[in-house]
């Protein structure tokens, strides 16, 4: 990988966010081999939680571009949410049927502070391999912008 990374010799990474600073190490690094659509150069992310932000989490790139995304469990938005993974998606995640997978959706907050969840293109993470992808479904009935009430 050619992108610069602020890793120190002992493989700990110190990152500054607008939420404050924190440290991560290699066990916290999520590999996104394709990046995210529009952010193809971002191959490694950390998923940040804090009690203040829960149930929102921040998916933050640690490669080059400082891209960060607010994420949420899609089933908190729509309890019946279902997304079918294609054989290709499963292959790329290294996931066999029945493997536990974490689903997240990205939030967009518009100029007026209204929040929308991208239910069409969820993020799927395979904890066993710490690998993630954003699913690009060919046909999904879910909207790209589903209104979310943030309290």
């Amino acid at each position, binding site marked *: 990988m050619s992108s610069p990374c602020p890793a120190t010799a002992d493989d700990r990474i110190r990152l500054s*966010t*607008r*939420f*404050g*600073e*924190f440290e*991560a190490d290699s*066990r*916290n690094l*999520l590999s996104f081999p*394709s990046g*995210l*659509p*529009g*952010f193809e150069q971002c191959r490694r992310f*950390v*998923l*940040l*939680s*804090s*009690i*203040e*932000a829960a149930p929102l*989490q921040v998916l933050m790139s640690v490669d080059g571009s400082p*891209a*960060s*995304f*607010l994420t949420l*469990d899609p*089933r*908190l938005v729509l*309890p*019946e949410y279902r997304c079918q993974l294609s*054989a*290709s998606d499963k*292959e*790329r995640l290294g996931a066999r049927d029945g493997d*536990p*997978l*974490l*689903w997240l959706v*990205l*939030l*967009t*907050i*518009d*100029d007026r*502070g209204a929040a929308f969840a*991208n239910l069409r*293109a969820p993020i799927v*993470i395979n*904890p*066993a391999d*710490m690998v993630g992808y*954003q699913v*690009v*479904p*060919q046909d999904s009935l879910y909207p*790209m*912008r589903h209104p979310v009430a943030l309290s």
Partner: protein
Amino acid sequence: MLVFSRRRGEAIVVGDGIEIVFLSAGREGVRIGVKAPISVPVHRKEIYEQICEENRQAAVALLPAGAETTLTPEAQRAQDSGIAPADESSLRVAVKAQSRVRSRS
């Protein structure tokens, strides 16, 4: 850009194991078949681009304007110390929590 003339059923091979077959042509457009290894994602470009655009907007608008300035220094410190990057075991816990949500619904 390479340009080819193809008859119905003829194909183009790209790289290792990717084959693009021209199935038929009509007034509405052409039907194309793509054979690719399972690990190679194949997308309709306009769908991929829509998701790119939505991701760009999601990344730019991380928080509503002014949200961070409403934090007092004390609250900011408390929040700093509470940031936890996920590792495999915390992700597995999160997966279990998700399946509980699913079974409740």
